[in-house]
Structure formats: structure tokens, C-alpha cells
């Protein structure tokens, strides 16, 4: 039975999301009819779970294996203990109220369905986050929550400012997520498991292990691995909980519809960081450095957030910075090891802030619907502000009321802790009390009479058809909030006892001191009370005297401008990170990628083409071709020379000479031999051979000469051939 109940707590919002998201057009009107019952049921089941956990203690449920690779296993499952149950109550409770409220507030909005789908998913992921059994699940839902916040902040997506705010929120959180993710991975590399309880059990024994972070450059920089993990996990917490270096997204998140602000500030998102630090407390306690960092960051945020809230003119932004400051307070407590106090403060603050934001939404809507909002407000709106003054009173830490038990006990611990710097911490704590009282009271005054010097409260939406929340709902809100807080106040001892099993094993030496004795506590209370009153009077004083007076004095003016510009942190980030990143990206793209690598490749091609052309023009045309042409010309010259010199002059002339000489020889032969010798002999015979003589007379001497010449030439040729063949 119990596993089903626990499983249903997250699955009901998930089911609501699925039904709304895939429910078709009908959901544009009836989304709340799915969302509200699911959330209310989840809240009821959370109450059941509270009772069950109190009875039987922590429970682990595993659903299915998400990843199973070799010996790496990630199981999707739930882990429920006292800490989880308390947060579950807060999350489902506030979410239910926000659902009810939104059904009126968002009525007629053109993205009604989307809105309800996303807040259901948002709630689901926060529930899963607090119930996660292992670090991977924590990371998964941490991120899903991030994207839900992105979708909600950009709800009015026609407004560029809303989109910018959403992107900014997501990216700032992404920086935190890298820290968280890296912490998770180092955690696995160290402990070889993602299971939180196993990690927490083994953490104290790993306190002395170190890891060399500069091994990759060959240097030695040993860092305690537990410190490393704790600090990186804390970076995640800084991002989500809007702590000091990464707080810039929170005021921008006010672009979301007001119920979302309630959800973000009271129930989900910002609480996740505190939850993470509380959940991983043994790990943090194993490293005193990490604890100190948590405390310092918390204190700084508490103070800085409070100071920024002092100068805001937009009531929603005052509340935003107040959240930041309060969460800083909780971190501050965690840094001392006062986890139970931090969680108690978280619960009380959650209930309060939900109440405040929802009332604000109403007030701001009334302002939006009136032409001269601020002036008429005092007359018309105050009766309808509902729970606002109550919430404000509670927030300003008036001692007999509420949250006092948390922070004051914490202050007391600060004062008695053995830390050398405890005076500083104590001082910061008290200053925060003063500042808180100041800005809360200032905000209240601003609602009655408009702030001078500031702009009018900004209208947070452009969508049409908004409805005022009817007084009964506000009354319920106010009374409900008050009751919850009263109950909480009365139950501080009970909460402390209830959370004992979670934190008892990790109680730090500071928190281990005995219960504060009444005398010390009284001193602290009196001081705080006085400081709060000082804060009120300051607020009153400055609201009476206009800001112009404040600005006229040069150092006041400087401080005022410093705070008004949010400490220039946003500008610093723009100058130091955003612009350089974009510049670097453009430089990398244009100069390195296109200018060097791509052009390099292209020039490789160009060089090849040039080489080819050179090869063609120089080597091929000029070298080889010309050589061959030259060779050709040479051959022709040779041939001509051969013909003219050798053939015509040499051979031909030789032959002619030979011929002439043969002719001469022939003539000689004919004259001397033939005519004188033979002729005479013939003549002697002549008479006897007269017929023959007549025939010979026919033979022309020139013909004979010719035949002889040819014969000799051929003879010479044949002889030459024979000569060449033989030798």
C-alpha cells in the first residue's frame, strides 16, 4: 500500500500534465479541473506520507533501471524520509493553492492550457527532486525544473523582455547545473555509486582523500575530493537558489505570471538548493572549507539581497530580492550545520511567500485595471489586499511572531560558536534583521502611498481578461497562511525532533551545543526586536523624505545608484562574460574557422590549381613542349643539313664526280683503248665484221655512259650494304 501512495504523490501531477498537454482544445478552458484535484490529492497523500514516515521511518522504492552499463547502474526510484516529507507538504500544498488561484488569475489567457500543463510538470519535477534516491535523478529533475521555469517565465512570449528573462534564467542555471553535474560525476568517480544514502554513509571516511586537479599539465595541486564534490554540488545550489554570484536571474523571473512567482519562490526552484545542501549534509560536514563557503555565500546573499530590496520600486521585485535574502539566510544556517533550523525557516518562508505573492498578484492586477493606479490604490485596494499585511508583518521577523524561532536560534548559535569569525557572522545576521524590517515596511508603505522617485509598479502581463481574485479566496489565503505559520511556529520543537533522524548523525560541533538557555536567547531577542524597530523607522523616515533628498547627498546618492543598478553585477556579467563570449564566438567563427581553417583548405585547393597551372605552363608548355619542339626543329635542321650538306654536296657531288670521272675514264677508254687499240684491231677485223661494225655504230655512246654510271652506283650501294651487314 505504502509504495503505491508514495508513487502516486509524483505521478498525480505527472498525470495532470499528460492529460492537460494531450487533452486537446477542451483543456483551454478546463485545465484547472484536472490540475486542482490531482494536486489536492497529492497534498492529501503527502499528509498520509508524513504520518507513515513518522511511524516507520525512511523508505526506499525503486521503479525501473534507467541506465545499466557494465557496473554503472542508475535506478529510477524514490527515497522518502523526514526531510522529504516536510518538503513534499510544502510543495504540494503551495502548488495546490497556486493551481486554485491561477484558475481565476489566468482565466481567459490564450495559453491557459500550456500554463497549467507546465505548472503541473514543474510541481512534478520538484516532487521528484525531493524524493530522488540517487544523484542522477536529482540532476535530471533539477534540469527539468529549469526548463519548466524557462517555459513559465517566457509565458508571455510576445514580449522580448520575457524571452530574454527566460533565456537568462536558464543559462544562469545552466552554469549552476554544470557545477552540479560535475559534482555528481566526480561523486561517482569517487564512490562508484550514485546512490545518495551510500554516498553519504561513505563520505566521512573519504574526507582525507585528495585528487590532483592539475595532473593534466603536470603540476601538483591536491584537493580534498570531498571538498571538491561538496563545492561543485554547491555551485548547483547557488544557481537554483539564486545565491550571490548567480543570483541575477531571480528578479528577471518576475516576467512570469504572478502565480508562477509564488510557485518559484515558495515551493520549488529556489528551495531546491537549500534542500540539496541539507540532503548532502554529511558530505558538506566532512569538509570544513565547503561549510565555510556555504556560510559566507549565504551571509553575503542575505545582506546583499536585503540591500537591493531597499531601493526597488516594483513590489514584485522587492519580494524577489527578499526571497534571495531569505534563502541566503537558510544557506547561512546550513553553513553552521544548523540544518533543522534552515529547513524550518524554509517551510515557514515558503508558506509566507506564497501568501505574499498571491496577494500581490491581486493588488497589482487592481493597479493594472485602473488608470491612475497608485493614487486610487490607497482608497480602493487596501481592503482587498487581503493577506498582504499579515504576510509582511510575518516576514519582517517581528519577534513574537513566526519565523523568529528559526533565525534567532541560529543567531544565538552564531554567537556561541567556536568560530573565530563568529562576530562577523553575528553582525551580518543582525544587519539582515534590520534591513529586512526596513524593506518590508517600505514595501507596505509603498502600497499605501506611491513611492517617490521610483517608477510605478509595473504591470506584469499583457494578456486580456484577468479577473480579480474574490475576497473570500483572499481571506482563505490570509487565514490559511496565518494558520499554517502559527502551526509551524508552535511546532518548531516538533519539527526539530522530527528532523532529528536525518541530521542527528551529522550534527556539527557547533549545532551540538546544548539548547540555548533562556537568558542568552532573551538578549538576542531584545537586540533583534530593537533592530527591527530601527528598520521600520528608517523605512518611514525615507518614505516621508523623498528620494530626492536622499540623492542630493553625494555618498547617499552613490550607494543609492549602486543598489538601484543591482550592484552592477548584471553589467559586470555582461561585460565580463556575455559580450566576450559572443565576441569570442564571432572571432572564432570568422577568423579561425572561416579565416584560417576553411581558407586554409580552400587555399590548399588554390595552391593545387596554381601548381597545376605552373606544371602546365612552365613544365609542360615551356619545358617539355619546347624541348620537343626544339628537338623537332633540330631534327628538321639536321635533316636539312643532311640533305644539303651530306646528301647534295657530299654524296651527290661524289656521285657526280664519280660519274664525271667515269665519263672521263670512258672517254679515255674509248679514245685510247677503243679507238686506237680495239678500233685498230677491229679495223683489222673490220673488214671481216662489217655487219657487226654497223650494229655498233647504232649504239649511242651517251647511252652507254649512262648505263655504266647507274651500274657503278648500285655496285657501290650494294658494297656498302654488304660492308655494313658484315661488320
Amino acid at each position, binding site marked *: 500500500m505504502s509504495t503505491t501512495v508514495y508513487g502516486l504523490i509524483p505521478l498525480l501531477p505527472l498525470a495532470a500534465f499528460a492529460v492537460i498537454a494531450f487533452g486537446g482544445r477542451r483543456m483551454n478552458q478546463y485545465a484547472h479541473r484536472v490540475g486542482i484535484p490531482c494536486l489536492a490529492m497529492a497534498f492529501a497523500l503527502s499528509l498520509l506520507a508524513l504520518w507513515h514516515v513518522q511511524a516507520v521511518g525512511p523508505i526506499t522504492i525503486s521503479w525501473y*533501471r534507467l541506465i545499466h*552499463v557494465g557496473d554503472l547502474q542508475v535506478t529510477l526510484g524514490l527515497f522518502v524520509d523526514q526531510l522529504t516529507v516536510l518538503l513534499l507538504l510544502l510543495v504540494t500544498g503551495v502548488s495546490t493553492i497556486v493551481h486554485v488561484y491561477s484558475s481565476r488569475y489566468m482565466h481567459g489567457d490564450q495559453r491557459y492550457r500550456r500554463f497549467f500543463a507546465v505548472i503541473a510538470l514543474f510541481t512534478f519535477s520538484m516532487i521528484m527532486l525531493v524524493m530522488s534516491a540517487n544523484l542522477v535523478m536529482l540532476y535530471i529533475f533539477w*534540469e527539468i525544473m529549469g526548463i519548466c521555469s524557462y517555459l513559465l517565465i517566457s509565458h508571455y512570449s510576445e514580449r522580448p523582455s520575457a524571452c530574454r528573462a527566460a533565456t537568462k534564467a536558464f543559462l544562469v542555471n545552466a552554469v549552476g547545473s554544470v557545477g552540479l553535474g560535475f559534482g555528481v560525476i566526480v561523486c561517482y568517480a569517487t564512490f562508484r555509486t550514485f546512490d545518495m544514502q551510500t554516498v553519504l554513509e561513505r563520505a566521512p571516511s573519504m574526507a582525507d582523500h585528495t585528487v590532483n586537479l592539475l595532473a593534466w599539465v603536470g603540476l601538483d595541486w591536491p584537493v580534498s575530493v570531498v571538498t571538491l564534490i561538496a563545492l561543485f554540488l554547491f555551485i548547483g545550489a547557488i544557481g537554483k537558489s539564486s545565491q550571490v554570484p548567480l543570483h541575477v536571474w531571480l528578479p528577471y523571473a518576475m516576467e512570469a505570471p504572478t502565480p508562477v512567482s509564488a510557485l518559484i519562490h515558495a515551493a520549488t526552484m529556489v528551495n531546491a538548493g537549500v534542500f540539496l545542501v541539507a540532503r548532502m549534509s554529511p558530505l558538506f560536514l566532512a569538509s570544513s572549507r565547503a561549510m565555510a563557503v556555504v556560510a559566507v555565500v549565504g551571509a553575503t546573499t542575505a545582506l546583499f539581497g536585503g540591500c537591493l530590496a531597499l531601493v526597488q520600486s516594483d513590489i514584485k521585485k522587492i519580494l524577489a530580492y527578499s526571497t534571495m535574502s531569505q534563502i541566503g539566510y537558510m544557506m547561512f544556517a546550513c553553513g553552521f550545520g544548523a540544518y533543522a533550523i534552515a529547513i524550518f525557516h524554509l517551510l515557514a518562508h515558503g508558506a509566507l511567500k506564497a501568501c505574499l505573492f498571491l496577494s500581490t498578484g491581486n493588488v497589482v492586477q487592481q493597479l493594472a485595471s485602473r488608470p491612475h493606479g497608485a493614487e486610487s490604490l490607497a482608497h480602493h485596494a487596501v481592503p482587498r489586499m487581503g493577506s498582504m499585511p499579515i504576510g509582511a508583518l510575518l516576514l519582517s521577523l517581528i519577534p513574537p511572531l513566526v519565523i523568529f524561532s528559526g533565525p534567532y536560534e541560529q543567531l544565538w548559535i552564531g554567537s556561541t560558536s567556536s568560530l573565530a569569525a563568529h562576530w562577523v557572522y553575528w553582525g551580518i545576521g543582525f544587519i539582515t534583521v534590520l534591513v529586512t524590517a526596513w524593506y518590508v515596511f517600505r514595501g507596505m508603505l509603498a502600497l499605501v502611498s506611491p513611492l517617490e522617485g521610483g517608477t510605478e509598479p509595473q504591470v506584469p502581463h499583457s494578456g486580456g481578461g484577468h479577473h480579480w481574485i474574490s475576497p473570500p479566496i483572499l481571506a482563505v489565503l490570509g487565514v490559511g497562511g496565518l494558520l499554517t505559520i502559527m502551526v509551524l511556529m508552535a511546532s518548531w520543537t516538533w519539527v526539530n525532533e522530527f528532523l532529528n533522524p536525518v541530521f542527528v548523525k551529522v550534527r556539527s560541533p557547533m549545532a551540538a551545543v546544548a539548547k540555548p538557555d533562556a537568558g542568552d536567547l532573551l538578549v538576542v531577542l531584545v537586540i533583534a526586536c530593537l533592530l527591527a524597530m530601527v528598520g521600520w523607522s528608517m523605512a518611514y523616515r525615507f518614505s516621508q523624505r523623498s528620494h530626492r533628498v536622499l540623492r542630493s547627498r553625494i555618498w547617499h546618492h552613490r550607494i543609492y545608484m549602486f543598489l538601484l543598478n543591482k550592484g552592477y553585477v548584471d553589467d559586470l556579467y555582461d561585460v565580463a562574460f556575455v559580450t566576450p563570449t559572443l565576441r569570442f564566438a564571432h572571432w572564432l567563427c570568422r577568423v579561425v574557422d572561416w579565416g584560417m581553417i576553411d581558407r586554409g583548405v580552400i587555399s590548399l585547393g588554390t595552391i593545387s590549381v596554381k601548381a597545376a597551372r605552373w606544371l602546365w605552363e612552365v613544365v609542360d608548355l615551356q619545358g617539355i613542349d619546347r624541348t620537343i619542339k626544339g628537338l623537332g626543329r633540330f631534327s628538321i635542321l639536321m635533316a636539312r643539313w643532311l640533305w644539303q650538306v651530306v646528301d647534295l654536296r657530299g654524296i651527290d657531288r661524289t656521285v657526280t664526280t664519280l660519274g664525271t670521272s667515269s665519263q672521263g675514264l670512258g672517254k679515255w677508254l674509248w679514245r685510247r683503248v677503243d679507238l686506237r687499240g680495239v678500233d685498230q684491231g677491229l679495223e683489222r677485223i673490220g673488214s671481216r665484221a662489217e655487219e657487226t661494225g654497223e650494229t655498233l655504230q647504232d649504239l649511242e655512246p651517251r647511252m652507254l655512259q649512262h648505263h655504266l654510271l647507274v651500274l657503278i652506283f648500285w655496285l657501290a650501294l650494294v658494297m656498302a650494304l654488304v660492308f655494313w651487314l658484315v661488320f
Partner: protein
Amino acid sequence: MTEWFANHLISCLVLLPVVGMALLALARDDEWAKRIALGTSLLELGLGIGLWLGFDAKNPEFQFVERYVWMPTFNIHYAVGVDGISLLLVVLTTLLTPLCVLSTWQSLHYRLKVFLALILLVEAAMIVVFTALDLFLFFMLWEVTMIPMYFMILLWGGPGRIAAGIKFVLYSLTGSLLLLIGILGLYLEGGRTFDWVMLSHQTYAPDSQFWIFLALFLAFAIKLPMVPFHSWLPDAHSEAPTAGSVILAGVLLKMGGYGFLRFCLPIFPEASAQFAPLILWLSVIAILYGGYNALAQTDLKKLIAYSSISHMGFVTLGIFVFNNPGIQGAILQMFNHGITTSALFLAVGQLYDRTHSRQIRDYGGLQKPMPRLVMLLSIFSVASFGLPGTCNFIGEFLVLVGASSKSYIMVLLAMGGIVLAAGYMLWMLQRVAFGQMVSKMVASLSDLTHREVMTLVPLAVAVFVIGLYPSPLFEVMDLRVTALVEHMNSMHATAISALGR
């Protein structure tokens, strides 16, 4: 009959697109051509799923093996088979092809038949590349994939298509040449055989390991692409038609990663270990480099192209840490990248069909006229930067866990790449989808048709199913990758003990 079918399943997978091409030649008109191509590719998808279902995850060896002698003189076979590493890539190929065919439905008119035939040709070739057990066969089909891609870019591409196509071919040819050298080197060193199984069971001299590894590494690094060899990709991706970009990004790049896993790691364990530090740093550089470059883009397709480079950095990072989470994460990352990046290209392609502009500044406020497109685009964008719950998260997360065993600083830098990815994707969404509508042109755009939605919805479903329940994918590769890691470790141990002696 069934048995015959089971024994020849891969050949059927290879031949079916070829048959489809033949039918396309007979098709009467473009309508019929579309139907034939879609039918063929869907049938092919069916066969691909059949392959997955028939695959025995308990068996780490090759399955569905077929082996016929092809050129006996050179000891070349037609040998194919799948194992846990290649199965997912084959399935991915068959999954993306029908979507490519669908993406041409109304956006492409010029010589549609030829285009569809080229798509089918690439599909057939890719399947052989992923299943080949013979290196010669692998090389041949590796080459074949290049040609249709070249023509797709050249004939159906954008304005800069000629330069992009030539760059693509020159890069690919360089890679192929190196691949050929590497394969011939293996052939000569490994006893005159192209058979993968025989080659992978031998040991090679350190010197030859070094050079052959280098040749193969460069070939695969160009294809993947790793950072100094990437400059073909942004141009080819952005100039190619939608289907071409999808094939390029979805499947073709995976040939590089597959090559590392199939050849570099098992055949040259020592050389791989020797090169690993360099490759790991190159991977980290690629992750950041791609991310920064994507941030600077004004062209939607180029932005996605540079994000691909970044994602591929995770693949090499995972492969070269040589452990189980790393390698399985890398394979999953390849699969997931195939899904998300293809989906992004499809979505941008649908936008391009309407406006013929890829410039981010031409858009703004798309949410109003095109809510469906914006929703799907948002899903794929957040999936692309690895939002938990989507598929990319699982892959990147495992790669990072794997890398944490080597160096924390690499993990941290790689995670910085994820922030960058979130940055450029969300910024792109902010500029394209949200805000005020920038022009009347934007206001007059019509939302996605049912057909267009149907091309994207399967991928959106896959994004979430894998993101929430990736076990089936791990199951098929677990044994195979475990065997590979053990093989590498034992080879490494042998090498160390040899050194000791």
C-alpha cells in the same frame, strides 16, 4: 521460408532499395515515384525493425552473417553481418530514410525520380558499410555513398552548392585515399586477407600499427568530422537539400564513429591507446569549438551543422576513453544525434520551404503563425543540448562518466560545451520563435500540414522514449562493447607485460 529469410535478411536489406530504384525507373510520374520510394523505405524500415527483433542480445558475436566468394584471386568476399555496434546504426539508417523521402513530398520538383533513387542508393550503400565484414566491400561502398551525396548537393542544393559539393568531394576523396592506403596496409600486413574477423585476431608490429592507424584515423576523422578536418561540413550541410542534410548529419557522419569502433579500436589497441590523449583533447576542443562557432552563426542550417561538430566531439571523447560507459554512451550519442539533428534539419527545412530563407534575422515571433512547428522545434532544440529526459542526455552523461576516469578537467570543459549548446539553442529559439513577429511575411506563414507533422512526430517520440527508457538500446550493445573493452584491456595488458619482459 522463414529460415531462408532470416539467413538472408541483410542481403534483403541491401537489395530492397536497389529494387526500389529499378521500380522508380519504371514509375509513370512523380506521384508514383514518391509512393514507390516511400513504400520501399517503409518496407525497409520494417526489415530494419525485424533485424532488431531477430537480434539475439545474449550473443556477442556477429549475427545474420552471409559470406560468398566474390573475387577469389584477391581473397575478397561478400561478407556481411551485424553485431551490437552496427545494429543501431542500421536501424537508424532505415528509420531516417522514409523521413527523407517524406521531406521531398512537396518541396522538391526538379527531377524528383532521380533524387529519390539517389536516396535509396545511399541507403543501400550505408547498410553495406555498417554490416560489411570484408574490408574491400566496406571500402567500395564507402566510396559509393559519396557519389549520390555529391549529386544531391550539386543538383538540388542552395546557392553555394557548387563550391560546397566540390569541397565535400575533395575532402571525402582524401579520406578515401587514406582509407584505401590503410586497408591495403592491413591486407599486406595481415596475411593477404580482407576478412575483418581474421584481421582483428592478429597482432601487428608497433610500426605498422602506427602508420595504418594514422591513415585510418585520418580517414574517419574527416568523415566524422573532428575539428581540424571539419570545414566541409558546415557548407555541405547548409547547401544540401533537406533530405541531403538529414542523410549527411543523420547517418553519413556516423560512418566515421563506426570506423573507429570497428577498425581502430579492436585491430590496433596499442596504437589507439598511444593516440588516445591527442584524440581526447581534440574531442574536447571540438566540443567547445563547435559550440562557440554555432553561437556565432546567423544561418539556421549552419548553426545546426556546427552543433553537429560539437556533438561528434562527444562521440570521439566517449570512444577513446576505452571503457564501457564511454563507448556505449558514444554509440548512443551517435544514434541520438541522428535523431535530434535530423529532426532539426527537417524542421528548418519545412520553414525554408515556406520562406526560402535560412537567416535567423528573417524570422521572429514564429510562435503565433506556426505553433506546431515551434513546439516541435523547441523539443528538438532542448533535446539537442541534452536536457535530461531527452535522449541526448543519456548519451552525453555516459560519455562524461566514462571520461571522468581519464581526466576531470576534460569533463568540466565538455560540460562547458553543454552550457554553450544551451546558449545557442535557446538564443536561436528566442530569436526565431518568440518575441514580436518581424514581418508580414512571417505573419502570413501557414502552420505545418499533417504530413509535415508526421515526419517530425516519430522523432519526437523517439527523443522521449530513449530519454526515459534507454535500456533496450543498451541491451543490444552491452555484451559486444564489454567484449571490446575486455579485448582492449587484455591487449593492453599483454603489451605492458611484453614491455616488462
